[in-house]
């Protein structure tokens, strides 16, 4: 959505997997570089981009469903701030937090909302879509349970590997007592959730409810498949788009996952399990907009009542929406993508078009930066990108479909107007 709005404002856009772009920051013509996050790994490249003369700005993909101040600040690495010309915040709370904690960023933070939320709101207006319809045909009515236990059950290595990764990317200081206490609490919290959410799945299945469990993409899905897939009434799936599964389901159960907020924005019934006494339950906006249940039994009863039509789970939407507003700007007049592009156009009026015709040559080199992990993490291919561009173009008809040129592996050059026979990039 940001790319399409940028094209409508007269920009040309390069979009794609970050590693190939990072490797060429110094060679790219001076332009705007928009980062998706602000952790240590991203910050390193922000510094390179800044040195190369680019206008450096960021959104923060990790905070869409987060409302805890400490966790939001944790996403911003200390070396990112000096390199950033502009920081896009999704709500007034985030802006006030960043400006209050780091006075030096005052004037560089813009409250714009979150393009991912805009996309969901727009998507919610559409009908189910073929993919979701197909899931409904295949599975019938089902309860979707999204797990999010990537610290105790990571996709790569194990729980200790997760700890080492946190230290490596700078979100965790092993010498900081508070950090270590928090991490320990996080492990215990996820273990408690595992017990509650797995028990709930088994109880619902025993009640005759079809349950589809989707482990988070950062989780090791195999262990779920090995130990739950044989239980009648429970399916463990990883494939397909989360939004399609959500739309196809009767309701979503989560435990502090971003998908809980996505469900709410789509107007979908959503329940959150919050077992035990853990401060983490209050960390997430997704719990704020979900019906929360501290026990398996209370969740089970509410879900069965909802499915039977006795009592709808989805209540107090207006109150929840009002509670959400400080955390996520939602005004209807403009989308987050439009606001971001407006700010960029005002800040960098001369950055509209790259001053080079060597882009294909620059990006056409071998895929040396795509490792096993990166390919797996990228999680998309050319068809996904093209489908995504088309889908966004449908949601923003005033912007129109762009001209797309593939510059290299998963790197795309987007410009206004239909493709010509001699696109020379």
């Amino acid at each position: 959505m940001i790319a399409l709005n940028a094209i409508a404002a007269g920009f040309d856009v390069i979009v794609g997997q970050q590693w190939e772009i990072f490797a060429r920051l110094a060679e790219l013509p001076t332009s705007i570089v928009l980062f998706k996050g602000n952790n240590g790994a991203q910050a390193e490249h922000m510094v390179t981009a800044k040195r190369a003369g680019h206008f450096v700005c960021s959104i923060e993909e990790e905070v869409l469903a987060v409302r805890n101040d400490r966790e939001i600040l944790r996403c911003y690495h200390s070396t990112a701030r000096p390199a950033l010309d502009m920081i896009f915040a999704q709500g007034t709370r985030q802006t006030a937090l960043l400006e209050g904690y780091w006075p030096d960023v005052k004037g560089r933070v813009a409250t714009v909302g979150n393009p991912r939320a805009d996309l969901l709101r727009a998507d919610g207006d559409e009908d189910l879509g073929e993919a979701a319809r197909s899931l409904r045909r295949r599975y019938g009515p089902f309860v979707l349970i999204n797990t999010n236990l990537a610290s105790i059950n990571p996709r790569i290595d194990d729980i200790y590997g997760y700890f080492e990764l946190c230290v490596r990317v700078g979100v965790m200081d092993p010498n900081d007592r508070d950090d270590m206490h928090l991490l320990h609490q996080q492990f215990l919290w996820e273990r408690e959730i595992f017990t509650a959410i797995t028990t709930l799945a088994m109880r619902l299945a025993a009640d005759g409810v079809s349950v589809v469990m989707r482990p988070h993409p950062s989780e090791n899905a195999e262990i779920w498949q090995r130990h739950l897939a044989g239980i009648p009434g429970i399916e463990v799936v990883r494939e397909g788009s989360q939004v399609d599964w959500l739309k196809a389901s009767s309701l979503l159960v989560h435990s502090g996952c971003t998908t809980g907020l996505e469900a709410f924005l789509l107007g979908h019934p959503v329940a959150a399990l919050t077992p035990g006494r853990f401060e983490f339950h209050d960390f997430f906006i997704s719990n704020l907009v979900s019906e929360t249940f501290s026990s398996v039994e209370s969740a089970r009863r509410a879900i069965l009542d909802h499915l039977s039509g006795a009592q709808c789970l989805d209540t107090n939407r207006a109150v929840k929406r009002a509670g959400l507003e400080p955390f996520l700007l939602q005004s209807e007049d403009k989308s987050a993508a439009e606001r971001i592009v407006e700010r960029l156009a005002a800040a960098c009026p001369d950055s509209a078009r790259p001053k080079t015709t060597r882009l294909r040559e620059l990006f056409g080199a071998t895929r040396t930066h795509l490792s096993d992990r990166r390919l797996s993490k990228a999680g998309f291919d050319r068809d996904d990108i093209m489908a995504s561009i088309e889908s966004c173009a449908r949601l923003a008809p005033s912007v129109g479909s762009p001209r797309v040129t593939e510059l290299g592996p998963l790197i795309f050059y987007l410009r206004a107007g239909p493709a010509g026979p001699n696109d020379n990039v």
Partner: protein
Amino acid sequence: MSDPSALTVMRDALRAGTTGAEAPRELIDLFADLARRLGPEGVADALRLVLAFHPNCAALLNIGATINFDRERWSEAADLARWAMAAGPNTSEGQMVAAAYLFRSRRLHEARHHCALAEELAPDGAGPLFLHGRVLMALDLVEEGLSKIDRAANRDAKFKFAARVLHLGLTAADFDRVKSDFASANTDGGK
């Protein structure tokens, strides 16, 4: 993107030498120096070239394994490490390197095999026990895995923290516990 100057340097060095199992020491040192200065991306093509001339040089293969590991190409790293083991001396450290790379790329049965060899070669070591324990846990052999990890922590205090963390990971035992509790609750009339 490989640095063309690295390729030129290696080409010139190879032109002056011969092919064979063991690369000359100067060539290994030159390549190690290039890798240090240019990083894994900078010497990718040079590595391929030098291995074509000296395919059974353990030192070069080990550098290659490390480079690939740094590039997160774990399977390639694992294969090069095992190749190096076959070509060079059979050490516990070498087996550990191969096992670690295999663990990362989730080739768990192969990793287990190399862990067992590493343990045989260093029966008093804590490192092989520790890694072997992690591999066994990933293979759902939780009790056996934790036992090895705890023994590693008793042998070497540097593994104590990691052992405590690993006791909190999600394992097959957790699924068994929840299923057993669920079955008991149903037998007891459900609660």
